[in-house]
């Protein structure tokens, strides 16, 4: 969705609606170049959902008044969340915009029983298999070994608890494998911590071990105590309710043979 708004003297202000993991946003900006880049980058996640979270992108001086509920700065770009809306300022390119959007999404997911995870997600037989691990653990390898169209994301997965069950969503925050992700979701089959090995094998993890596997790979940017408490509550629930495994895998498609269905 792209529609011109009022003219503020810096060119027409435009807006673009997108939704990631059913969290709706509306970007508003008169920055023509950035608008074009954002429209292209998030095209697959275009959405005109009702009551979106409005983001004023590079829209001029910061208003005086109440302090932000949440703030984050990244290489000169600043995110500030106020009760009346969100401001992104000093955003020079789509990569900075992408970073602030991840930060904002991770914060907004706290109120929606969700979180962002460094993980590749592959859908097989209608269920989402989530492969997590540190950089180099094999997320992109798993994605590259999976059939075309089955990869929700090879970099950052979004998990949410909805109607008593966990779902995984694709995100536009793509990694090195694919230039485009999938704007879709599936119920979670399990979380698999990747360990490259000579032989395939799975070992079931206890909830504490699942939590231990999740924590270093969760994207979260707030040092505020209450936010961290809420995040830990959500992750503990996920670790208790989602099956988790250590997956030792060879770098070929045979690892699927040892995964629980």
């Amino acid at each position, binding site marked *: 969705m792209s529609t011109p708004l009022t003219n503020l003297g810096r060119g027409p202000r435009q807006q673009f609606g997108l939704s990631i993991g059913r969290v709706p946003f509306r970007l508003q900006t008169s920055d023509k170049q950035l608008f074009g880049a954002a429209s292209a980058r998030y095209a697959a996640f275009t959405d005109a959902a009702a009551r979106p979270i409005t983001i004023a992108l590079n829209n001029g001086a910061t208003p005086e008044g109440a302090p932000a509920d949440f703030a984050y700065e990244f290489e000169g770009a600043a995110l500030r969340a106020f009760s009346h809306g969100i401001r992104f300022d000093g955003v020079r390119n789509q990569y900075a915009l992408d970073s602030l959007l991840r930060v904002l999404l991770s914060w907004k997911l706290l109120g929606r029983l969700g979180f962002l995870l460094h993980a590749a997600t592959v859908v097989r037989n209608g269920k989402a298999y989530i492969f997590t691990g540190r950089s180099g653990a094999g997320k992109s390898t798993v994605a590259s070994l999976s059939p075309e169209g089955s990869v929700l994301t090879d970099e950052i997965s979004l998990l949410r608890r909805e109607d008593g069950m966990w779902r995984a969503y694709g995100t536009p925050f793509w990694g090195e494998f694919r230039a485009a992700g999938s704007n879709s979701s599936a119920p979670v089959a399990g979380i698999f911590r990747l360990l490259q090995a000579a032989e395939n094998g799975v070992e079931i993890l*206890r*909830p*504490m071990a699942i*939590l*231990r596997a999740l*924590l*270093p790979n969760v994207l*979260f940017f*707030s*040092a*505020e*105590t209450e*936010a*961290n*408490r809420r*995040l*830990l*509550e959500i992750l*503990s629930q996920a*670790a*208790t309710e989602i099956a988790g495994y250590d997956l030792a895998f060879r770098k070929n498609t045979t690892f699927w043979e040892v995964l629980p269905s």
Partner: protein
Amino acid sequence: MSTPATVFWQKNPALAWREIDGETVIISPNDSVMHELNDTGSFLWKNIDGKKSAVELAELLLENYEVTPDIALSDTQALLEEMSSRKLLVTVPAIGGVSP
């Protein structure tokens, strides 16, 4: 142990923590470091409320686990000192106030 016996122990109020699977995980938001406590550590953690000294906590440990009084006290003191060094606990003087 360097801490006076009259000192009470309290959880650092800035921490996030949860008990899961009989164990406790503690996150310090400032540095995102994760700390884990085993069964007895979790037991002590649950009983640390700003109103108990090391001796009182050791007595609780003694009542609930099969340990000798000496070991209960030495293990309790060691754990409190360890958690204090990691800024997971603060001490509360008997006269009031909180000191790091």
